[in-house]
């Protein structure tokens, strides 16, 4: 039995490596035969289905993900931090318990239901409120993703605030500080690494969100650029990296190589989607690693 426990214990490492391995294996032929760094990262031309001139520029997709993530975080980080401060410092008892359960329910709502709400409820609301021609855009996706990443941000920020020793609070209160002074002079500086990690994990969640974004951002490969501040236009439709995989993997043909090991050009579409998967894996891995290091940073000091 103990042998099984050890085996299962290390299985997480095996799974992380095998996720990378199997996704990489499918994407590798593209990386070998067709991949062009400059095209992939700096060209907005995504024409994988064109007969004559296939292009695999992911810039528009990357910026789509970036704009939705940015918009979502502009909403979710302040609200998440505010809610976490309120839950951890200002309220207690039944009310606190009720708020925490609410957050848990918020986290439990499936992504496809969020997408459905964006599609059926928010999209008409946005058209009505802003006069935009379509309601499926960065604004819609951003709000939905913000609501979806709030629970992560709130619960991790709350943990970070809870981890500040009570003696800190008592010392500040004894000096005559009000709760608000305790919060912004003592707690926020003491918990800042944990709060940063919470925001980072929220970003990770937003980057990786698939179904809700797929249903609410409107499916157009488009750079939501606007020459005025804030440089992207929330009422433009975009398509994110995750939504591209979800939308195109079903229709991209999975072809086998000819006997000499070369793939026909039509096979690249399928493979490039796995390359996007590797990119997403790398982004979230980097975000999680950074968040972990940031949290470890406080623990060593504390």
């Amino acid at each position: 039995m103990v042998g099984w426990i050890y085996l299962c214990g290390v299985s997480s490492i095996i799974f992380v490596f095998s996720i990378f391995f199997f996704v990489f294996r499918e994407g590798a032929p593209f990386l070998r035969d067709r991949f062009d760094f400059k095209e992939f990262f700096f060209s907005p031309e995504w024409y994988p289905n064109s007969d004559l001139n296939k292009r695999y520029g992911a810039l528009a997709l990357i910026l789509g993900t970036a704009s939705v993530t940015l918009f979502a975080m502009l909403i979710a980080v302040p609200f998440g931090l505010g809610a976490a401060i309120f839950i951890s410092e200002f309220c207690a008892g039944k009310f606190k318990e009720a708020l925490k359960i609410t957050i848990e329910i918020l986290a439990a709502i499936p992504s496809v239901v969020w997408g459905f709400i964006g599609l059926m409820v928010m999209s008409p609301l946005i058209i009505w409120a802003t006069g935009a021609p379509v309601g499926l855009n960065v604004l819609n996706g951003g709000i939905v993703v913000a609501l979806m990443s709030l629970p992560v941000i709130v619960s991790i920020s709350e943990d970070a605030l809870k981890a500040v020793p009570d003696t800190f609070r008592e010392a500040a209160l004894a000096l005559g500080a009000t709760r608000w002074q305790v919060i912004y002079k003592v707690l926020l500086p003491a918990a800042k690494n944990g709060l940063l990690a919470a925001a980072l994990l929220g970003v990770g969640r937003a980057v990786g969100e698939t179904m809700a974004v797929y249903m609410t951002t409107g499916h157009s490969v488009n750079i939501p650029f606007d020459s005025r501040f804030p440089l992207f236009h929330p009422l433009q439709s975009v398509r994110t990296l995750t939504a591209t995989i979800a939308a195109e993997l079903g229709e991209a043909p999975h072809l086998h190589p000819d006997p000499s090991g070369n793939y026909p050009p039509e096979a690249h579409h399928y493979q490039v989607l796995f390359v996007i998967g590797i990119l997403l894996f790398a982004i979230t891995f980097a975000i999680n690693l950074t968040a972990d290091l940031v949290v470890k940073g406080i623990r060593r000091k504390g």
Partner: protein
Amino acid sequence: MSQEPAMKDGNPFGETDLIRKKMRAEAAARLLFGAMAVLMVIPLLSILLYLFYKGWPILSWQFIADVPRHNMKEGGIWPAILGTIYLIFFSLCASAPIGVLAGIYLNEFARDNWFNRAVNLAVLNLAGVPSIVYALFGVGAFVLAFGFGRSILAASLTLGIMNLPVTIAATKEALSAVPRSFREACWNMGATPWQTIRTIVLPNSLSGILTGVILSVCRAAGETAPILFTGAVFFKPIEGKGLFAYGLFDQCMALSYHLLTVSTQLQGVPEALLYGTALVLICIVLVFNSVAVSIRVYLRSHQRW
């Protein structure tokens, strides 16, 4: 500071302007953060109420137990519900044993060294991998490399691996809540580590572990992306085949995938049917979730130490 105007009435401990200013800032902060917390509750409640309001009229035994008819425009959603049940069951078979044992390893056996830090990091990372990347992994590993094809087996294994971190985290938390003195007492009786875990630690943390397993059911029921290309299918006729309509290597319908297709890929599906589907999905998730929450609330009030 020395000449406080509020000391006019002779009380040196009365409210000064400074204190009043402090109290105003305090009240403002409380109001602001409270509003932020409440603003999180409002969309949730309004969404749930709206779904109930729109989906309630169509909800009937017939809607749940009938198969879709006329290209999904009429009839019920039974094949999708049954498919979701299959996916939940088989993904649990994969994730619950591995997850619980991994949690036991991390909490009871793992010493604090670089290797186990790497294991912990791997668990964190598994939790952060986007669901669509799990779909790609499922396609690359189970559908193609292992040759399961698009099937319930491939989809459940993908879901199971995705749910591992939930089970592991909950198990770890439940185990670490058991006081160390319990274990020490048992070791002093001459028990081996495994005997200690089996007879003392596990019985005392069983409900906490159960909470984690139920939460992973919740996730398995709602996830769409991982089953998109590994086993979910748009329509599968299973009329009159009873509970064992699907085989392990069949593709199946699933509630979450069904909601996606009827709301984005089909034209002219009646609105009530869409809201009904969403409502059934959310009810399943909420039922499991409230079971998990009530177990935890019960536990906290009946803790024996």
